[in-house]
């Protein structure tokens, strides 16, 4: 197997049974590595964008607990720490799964876990500290789980502003901090509730299930969200989230909210984001069995359907919340994994697609980056 070189594209794929790596110099010919952590679920694995070398993998053994492992040689060897994140004794709860790993701005590492919690490591995942300001929220006993469990699945640091962060919890909603995690504010204003005519307000409790949130590549204040109850955008100064669903498929005219799991932003084009609509929460498969990625290039005013090269009949799979990502190449590559084990990708920002890998286990997460950094 050829040794990776600086500039190679690396795609990390977390599945129900291990993690796979795909490496390419030209994004046409790929070599695969793995599976690593055979038999264990990897809900998220990511090439650290700061060094372009370390891959972090959140490995969940349903029997023996979760850890965050790392490799610095593309899977040649893995370092597994002695412990994973742990809730303090007085909490009465236990970390069961790692849902998200996020390299921070100062070399720290963040982990989002189930039951919902945020942890920080300053020694490369060897030890973890609980972010008490969030994990000890007084109403956490009222946080309801989503269908996948009560999980903290999205961690969004704010580029250039180290004390700001937003996180997403299914189904306790969105929380933001401006003071480095000491205090957190609920930021669910404008989101449809689960009862007719209910619309949530900032700062209030209530049930909402953000499936994924992402920052715009050019303006980190601009957020896009795929929620259980629709697709939204929010930016600085907005009092609430705004629905952005024009051009998305409508399954139920009485309830036009667009259901799906992932949302990603283009790596450098302002106002450009991608989602994969599903039929609805009653049937979480791609719309009409025809797979399509939808793209907006104007911040959500309008969505266009992209399907060239994607299966257009009998495609009855799901694309999970972390199973779509971009690389940082030009033109941008986009990678989408399915619960039936296919990995599709586009080398031209979503216009044309092809199969990169097939017959994998249900894909939980996809990340793409550049070996050695960009």
């Amino acid at each position: 197997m050829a040794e990776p070189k600086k500039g190679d594209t690396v795609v990390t794929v977390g599945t129900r049974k291990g993690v796979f790596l795909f490496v390419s110099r030209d994004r046409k010919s790929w070599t695969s590595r793995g599976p690593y952590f055979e038999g264990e679920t990897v809900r998220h694995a990511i090439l650290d964008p700061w060094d372009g070398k370390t891959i972090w993998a959140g490995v969940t053994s349903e029997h023996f607990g979760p850890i965050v492992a790392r490799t610095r040689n593309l899977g040649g060897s893995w370092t597994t720490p002695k412990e994973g994140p742990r809730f303090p004794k007085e909490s009465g709860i236990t970390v069961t799964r790692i849902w998200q790993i996020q390299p921070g701005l100062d070399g720290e590492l963040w982990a989002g876990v189930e039951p919902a919690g945020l942890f920080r490591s300053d020694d490369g995942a060897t030890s973890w500290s609980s972010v008490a300001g969030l994990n000890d929220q007084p109403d956490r006993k009222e946080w309801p789980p989503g269908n996948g469990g009560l999980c903290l699945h999205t961690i969004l640091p704010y580029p250039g502003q180290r004390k700001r962060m937003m996180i997403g919890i299914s189904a306790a909603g969105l929380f933001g901090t401006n003071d480095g995690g000491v205090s957190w504010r609920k930021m669910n204003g404008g989101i449809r509730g689960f009862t007719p005519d209910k619309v949530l307000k900032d700062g209030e409790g209530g049930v909402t299930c953000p499936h994924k949130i992402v920052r715009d590549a050019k303006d980190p204040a601009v957020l896009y969200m795929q929620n259980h109850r629709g697709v939204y955008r929010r930016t600085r100064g907005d009092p609430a989230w705004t629905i952005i669903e024009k051009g998305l498929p409508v399954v139920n005219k009485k309830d036009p909210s667009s259901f799906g799991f992932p949302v990603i932003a283009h790596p450098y084009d302002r106002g450009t984001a991608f989602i994969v609509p599903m039929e609805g929460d009653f049937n979480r498969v791609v719309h009409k069995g025809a797979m399509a990625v939808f793209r907006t290039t104007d911040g959500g005013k309008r969505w266009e359907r992209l399907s060239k090269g994607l299966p257009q009949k009998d495609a009855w799979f799901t694309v999970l919340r972390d199973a779509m990502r971009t690389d940082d190449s030009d033109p941008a590559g986009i990678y989408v994994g399915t619960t039936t084990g296919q990995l599709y990708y586009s080398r031209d920002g979503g216009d044309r697609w092809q199969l990169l890998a097939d017959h994998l286990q249900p894909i939980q997460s996809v990340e793409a980056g550049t070996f050695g950094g960009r």
Partner: protein
Amino acid sequence: MVGGEPRVRVWLPRALREYSGGEDTVELSGATLAKVIERLNARFPGLGYRLLDDQGRMRRYVLVFVNEDSVGDAGPDAVRLRDGDTVHIVPSVAGG
């Protein structure tokens, strides 16, 4: 019996043998399951985390049998061991 403590044999499941250098059984001393796990962890650092949850209970899907009898939901501190006991650690039959 060593130092007044029972000597027991612990069987490790395949998934945990990376900690024991591939050995499937380990002999050590301990009057309770908690003490045995503490000493397992001292000998093979990290093994304790794999067996006990954040509250010090056996992980939900880890089963323990002492001489073929399940310890059930008993906490590790409450499981008393005798000299010559065999402790089997088994992942529960689950999943797909």
